[in-house]
């Protein structure tokens, strides 16, 4: 630990460390519907970098990050996995959607440390053995994209819908995609593509 860091920690006092630790736990609780928030047994880490291991697309990655780093930024800035996009950074657009243990998550709203021990799937990992996921295939065939910046998130949301609804109605698809914004206006074809993928699956 450098002298400057020590001094900073002293100035900030313990409250900063406690705040970060509690914040991490609270965010995890929010993302997964409670249970962990407020637990007295959360191990204390940070505020400076600590090693974590993330399982992304079936591969373990060990990296050193500050506890406040979001899952999105851990993926993008530390692992160079840039399929998930930082668009609104406030959980309002779905551009950063990934699957965590099979659950669709806005990765900008989850701390990377809360994803430790879970299986993370990004658009890069949705294709299996060089074959595109049916949703990805349908997006290509129906031209369900233009600039493509919302596409990785849309594809993840589409895959999430099909993982729970083998034959979703158009209304259900629209409702389920309501957390994802597309500025080019490809929604119509995105919904068609999800429906098409369901038929193929």
């Amino acid at each position, binding site marked *: 630990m450098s002298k400057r860091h020590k001094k900073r920690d002293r100035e900030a006092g313990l409250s900063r460390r406690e705040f970060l630790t509690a914040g991490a736990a609270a965010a995890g609780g929010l993302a997964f519907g409670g249970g962990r928030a407020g637990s007295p047994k959360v191990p204390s880490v940070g505020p400076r970098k600590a090693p974590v291991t993330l399982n992304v697309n079936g591969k373990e990655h060990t990296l050193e990050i500050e506890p406040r780093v979001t899952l999105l930024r851990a993926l993008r800035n530390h692992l160079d996995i840039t399929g998930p996009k930082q*668009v*609104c950074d406030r959980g309002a657009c779905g551009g950063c959607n990934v699957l965590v243990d099979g659950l669709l998550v806005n990765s900008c709203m989850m701390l990377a440390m809360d994803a430790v021990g879970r299986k993370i799937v990004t658009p890069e990992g949705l294709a299996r053995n060089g074959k595109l996921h049916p949703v990805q295939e349908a997006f290509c065939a129906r*031209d369900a994209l233009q600039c493509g910046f919302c596409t990785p998130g849309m594809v993840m949301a589409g895959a999430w819908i099909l993982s729970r609804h083998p034959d979703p109605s158009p209304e259900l698809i629209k409702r389920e995609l309501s957390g994802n914004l*597309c500025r080019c206006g490809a929604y119509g074809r995105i919904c068609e593509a999800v429906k098409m993928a369901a038929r193929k699956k």
Partner: protein
Amino acid sequence: MGKIKTKVGFRGNVKEIEVTIPDHEPAPWDAETPLKVVGTDVPRLEASLKVTGRAKYTADIHLHGMLIAKILHAPYGAARIKKLDVSAAEAMPGVRGTTVFKGEGRPLLYHGDEILAIAADTEEQAEDAVAAVKVDYEFGTPVTTVEAAMKASAPSVFEGKENVQENKKARIRQNDPEKAIQEAAKIIEATYETQVQTHSCLEPHGVVARFNEDGSLTLWASTQALFQVRSDAAAQAKLPQQKVRVIAEHVGGGFGSKFALGPFGIAAIELAKKTGHPVKCVLTREGEHTTGGNRPSSIQKMRGGVTRDGKIAGVSVTTHGTGGVAGGAGCANPAVYHFPAVHKEEYSVYTHAGPAMAFRAPGHPQGFFALECFIDEMAEAVGLDPLEFRKRNCDNELYHAEWDLGAQKIGWKERRNTVAGGGPGAVKRGLGMASTLWYQKGGWKDWFGQRYAVEIVATRDGAVEVRNASQDIGTGLRTLLACIVAEELGLRPEEISVKIGDTDLPRGAPSGGSQVSPSIGPAARNAAFQLKKKVREVAGLGDGVTWKEACRRIEGEALRVTGERSPNYGEYKDKVAGCQFVEVEVNVETGRIRVKKVVAVQDAGKVIDKLTFESQIVGGVTQGISYALFENRILDRRRATQVNADFISYKIAGAADVPEIVPIAFDVANAVNNCGMMGLGEPPTIPTAAAIANAVHNAIGVRVRSLPMTPDKVLTALAGGEGRK
């Protein structure tokens, strides 16, 4: 140069014209040319890269030793920096450099105005440092609306300059409009208002800058004008343009807002220079809303006269709008219809808000909202069906054909309420329509005077690579070029690879005014035409020799051919037409409008790839719905702070807001260039808001003349407030 005869027009309306084409060019694809690839559904070449997240946008570029820069934006408008202290920020861990845009004593005109940028090792450190900058602000009195800025007592946004500026070029006085209106059988008056809409590109503006060992500069930029960015960057870095390379392989939307290097680009260059590291500077969502561009608002006062037999006698239009600290708040009307007498005045009004930028058909969605609603109001005044009224006041056969097609597809005759409003139940249904136009024929050179060109490289293994510098902001340029080259060479589009988005490639066009496709497409066809000739000469293509076999006989590694864009030939139509028909449901108890269906007929010369052509139409309509019903930048009146600079409270249409959209790609052989192509990106977003407003009137019998048409405005109109007829 040689004269040739070519068949132009559209189905059921084809005629022969004579055009003069350069000797080395193929004849334009006309109304009767048999085509195998052109006009079919061809999936986007880069689609698999985009669906797997492997397409690299500027925001995704990660270089060894790269720093992240963040900008400190002014949180207020009409303020001044009393004191600026960066010492604490600069002492923070990871901080490598600061560049100051505005120091002590400088005015901050609007929320988002750039104060400084800081580069640090990580994104979090850069954010911490920006948050640790101490600024003391001195507050002035902001003006945030057109009405407030127009008051005699209003403070000036720019010292010593009037807030209200006339756009003198837009002034029109044709014949005697006052007399024509006064003498007409019916006089109609109405005022229409439109809001400020932000571009809200999903990929924020951003630049990565890297100085190379040889002193040259490489930029990755989220831009729609690579060569403009190169020119700006060369000036900023004091380098000759040849020493600057700009790359934009994929761009996450632009819509008119990404033409310049921008403060983020200046920050990246300055901080890269200062620190010796590559620097990435990408705007936050708040920065994007407040500084990343917007469509100016408008207040449009219309007065017009109609004769007894349903002909427009004359019109008078006065418009005011604000583009914040930028001008250019124009309204593109009157247009489309025949106006025998016209008076037009246009004023841009400065306010303490971020600068407007070109936004998909600048001035047109605003102007056509007023124009096409006013046309409906004129028709109603003389008791005519709005479609019939339009026909009486326009003699362009293309519009007539498209109107008839759209009317038939929506069921205009059978399903439109002949008496507006009424019917039982709280949910009222109605139909409306509006027209559009655009002007883009493509050009042969850019605004720097450089001629557009496409290079094609055919290698001995039969591979074909098409090369052009233009960026693709989402329209599908790669696929379009592949279709054109495949058609000419007798190959399939997926056999063609396309390299774009790099200033090291042959000259490309800026993505503005819908010009890239019609400018670059014809150059690609020229290149393919010459390549085919060459392969035939040197390798005996044809006569039973396939492309692959012929390519094997190429001497050396590859054949390289460059095709240039020639000036346009003359044409069948110098503009594109188009129209949209809309069905809405309006709940008169809640005031909520739901768009149920949109039929969008759009021409843009020859349809090259039908799939992406339709995507452009659907995208334009969707943005139009969002503009009509939801989007609205809201400023706090006391501090000029945008209160909805995020995606939580700045509402953009989502999947559930979008109805069935039926895109109809209306093929027109135009002979304007060798592909017969016209620009498409802009026209489909122009008429949507007006068509929805006209449908709302047809549903509930009262007019909503203000965008966005939110429930409060619908209920106010129903209660007999503004807009009651």
